[in-house]
């Protein structure tokens, strides 16, 4: 009730663990690895973490209500590809961005509709929309997506505000809004209730439809935003540019201490999770390890960390 937070409560809180591990890893990186002590490096890290982080924040909203969104990779590509094509064609940057975001939101709505009305399990539903998206993008681009320079996206991805990358600022803004949505608003309570037990939530009058639509549309929208920022960052779009984000966004959520089964966790944990994953990847890269060894180590590290603090209660 008071401002005092007991140490025991902190130890039991999995998001706190995520930040604890992040801090220790970062400290170790600065002390023992080469090049992690510069401001430029820090800046670059938070900038690259932002792309993953924005997707992961959206994923958190869905996972919390015991859903899952496997179509985020498709949506990231969709938004970038569509925006690039529209912008490089006749449309111009603003139209491109608008169309991309609208389409992303539409995908989210389709996901939610399938889960709520057709009662298709979230994993299958989002898997299917993801597959459909990859196919649709192939058809749309005829296999060769275009590149485009949208000034707004360029500066969003690469410029800085008082030395802080805009992408990171955007991520923090997105996280703040999502924090409010999930932890302060009524919808957030509904999401937690649905995640903790569907039947009990229904019997308490929780609106499944509205909550699911909010979560899935927000998630897809954020994936769309991430796609746009990525487009600005690389200046080009590709059909596979979203692929890493499918599994990594889920890994960020889980490493951030949110239960994959829903109803338990904290949005800020996901921020820590995304930073941690990005930092680990950067560390492994800095050691000049091959792609394969990097993945192996990352996989082992994720499993190890999950074993330390993310075990589900045995029932």
């Amino acid at each position, binding site marked *: 009730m008071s401002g005092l937070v007991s140490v025991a409560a902190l130890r039991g809180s999995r998001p706190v663990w995520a930040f604890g591990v992040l801090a220790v890893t970062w400290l170790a990186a600065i002390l023992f690895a080469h090049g992690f002590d510069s401001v430029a490096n820090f800046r670059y890290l938070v900038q690259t973490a932002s792309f993953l982080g924005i997707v992961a924040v959206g994923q958190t909203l869905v996972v919390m209500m015991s859903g899952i969104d496997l179509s985020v990779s498709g949506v990231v590509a969709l938004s970038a590809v569509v925006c690039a094509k529209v912008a490089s064609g006749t449309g111009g940057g603003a139209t491109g961005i608008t169309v991309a975001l609208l389409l992303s939101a539409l995908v989210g709505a389709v996901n939610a509709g399938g889960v709520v009305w057709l009662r298709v399990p979230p994993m299958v539903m989002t898997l299917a929309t993801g597959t459909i998206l990859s196919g649709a993008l192939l058809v749309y681009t005829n296999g060769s997506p275009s590149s485009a320079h949208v000034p707004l996206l360029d500066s969003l991805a690469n410029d800085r505000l008082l030395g802080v990358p805009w992408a990171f600022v955007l991520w923090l803004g997105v996280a703040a809004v999502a924090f409010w949505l999930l932890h302060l*608003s009524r919808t957030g309570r509904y999401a*937690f209730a649905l995640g903790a*037990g569907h039947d*009990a939530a229904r019997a308490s009058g929780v609106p499944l439809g509205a909550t699911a639509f909010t979560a899935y549309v927000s998630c897809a929208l954020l994936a769309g935003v991430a796609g746009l920022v990525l487009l600005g960052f690389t200046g080009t779009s590709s059909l596979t540019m979203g692929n890493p984000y499918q599994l990594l966004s889920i890994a960020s959520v889980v490493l951030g201490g949110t239960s994959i089964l829903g*109803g338990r966790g904290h949005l800020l944990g996901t921020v820590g999770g995304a930073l941690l994953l990005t930092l680990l990847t950067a560390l492994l890269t800095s050691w000049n390890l091959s792609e394969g060894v990097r993945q192996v180590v990352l996989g082992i590290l994720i499993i190890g960390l999950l074993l330390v603090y993310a075990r589900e209660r045995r*029932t």
Partner: protein
Amino acid sequence: MAPLLSVEQVSKSFAGNQVLKEVSFTVEPGEVLALVGENGAGKSTVLSLVTGLLAPDSGRVVHDGAPVPRAWSPHRARAAGIGSVHQELSLNPHQSVAENVFLGAWPSRRGLVRTRDLVARARPLLERVGLDVDPRTRAGRLPLGRQQLVELAKALAGEPRLLILDEATSALDEDQVGAVFRVVRELRDQGGSVILVSHRMAELFAVSDRLTVLKDGAVMATRERERTDHDDIVRLMVGRELSDLFPEKAAADPVADPVAPLLQARDLTVPRACSSVDLDLVPGRILGLGGLQGQGQREVLRALFGLDRHTGQITLDGRRVRLSSPREAIRHRIAYVPEDRKTEGVHTARSVRDNLALPSLRTLAPANRLTTVSRTAETRLVADLTDRLRIKAASPAQEARRLSGGNQQKVALAKWLPTDPRVLLLAEPTRGIDIGTKREIYHLLRRLADDGLAVLVTSGDTMELVGLCDEVAVLYEGRVVDRLTGSALTEERLVRASVMGTATESDEQPEEQADDPSGEKTVLLAEELVNDIDDSDRPDPSGSVTHA
């Protein structure tokens, strides 16, 4: 002769909560031991130590003259000749009856399990427990009672020398209970031993040789059956005499002082559950739905809360309403406390605070769904409710699963109060709850009725219906066959209507016989569904067995 099993000074705690305190008892060969106690007294826990589901913190279990090894497990227990049937079903609903009977120990020839073999071997076992089903039927297709008998057949398949029946008869009818007892006696006569847990006092006295009473995790006493009686055992179980369990009933006489019903159901029909049910819910009154288990009581309640699809007319305050979802029902200020507390009543993984606030979020964040929930208003609401219903929680942040069953039930009920309901629907409101909390809930329900709520209660506990309700409608095969009020509302008549499926004439039975709960006749009639007097030890269907 050495005892077959002896439990010596075992203690066990869960998360700092001691559930067994130096419990000791023995079971001799050729003996039936009854374990008696209120829910939460530790019976299931101590049996889990014997069957290898749990390990004791201290003390030991000695089986067949040797302490059980550290790595005691259900597998080893079964191999050592301990068979058990738990209140929680362990059948796989998707496999056949025969496959379930030999679950984990399928007989095979050259490594192959032949269906024909399995079926042939299952038949005599099923016959032994009085079960006439095709062994190839999928287990999930059988009604609950028959599934429990399959469990018994499964335990017998291991040719146990010690059989543990933990609430194994709770879902059985009279004939089925008879079959179980035949097996128990057979086993005893062959020198085997049985540990029996049941909430039906009459059953315990019918087959057991000794009774060991547990209370709050400690053994109160062990009595020879010949040297004790119901009252003695109940006193040991409860530890005190309990007065005014039930509150005074509504003063107003419906005939002299008619009140317009608040909610009227006409021709209420839920496919395959109930048909043409008419109900009038009156403000200030508690209506009960009685009958044998599974006669449509549950579905009537679920339909009125918009959970089950139904046909028929429902009017509220004289206006037709459509109750097609819980949200709609809640909008009409109907509240529902479900039977399955742990999956529908409360979110066990969420805090007490979150649980209590959930139905009131509309008022705590009034503008729209994106409004911030007011923390201060929420805190006030939670404090008010925990206070008012005396919910015992370490703090509002405590997870609901850490509460006792009674406090969980209080949460499931309390969360509706701030929504200002006009109709309150409760299914089995006191199942698996200790008698003190029962009393609190009865009195609370009456206070709510006095404040003008219309209350509808289903219960398998006859005494509860008779003691609490102003009127009881008896369901039989989905139809209302009798309505009992005033002096006609007695346990005897309720049981009679439940079993016969017809209305009873008011002058047929003398009243005093019904008031004698230990009377042979009542017990016989009641055998099927009922708790004997002072029964407070019903099984919790959601499983109160704790697993490590």
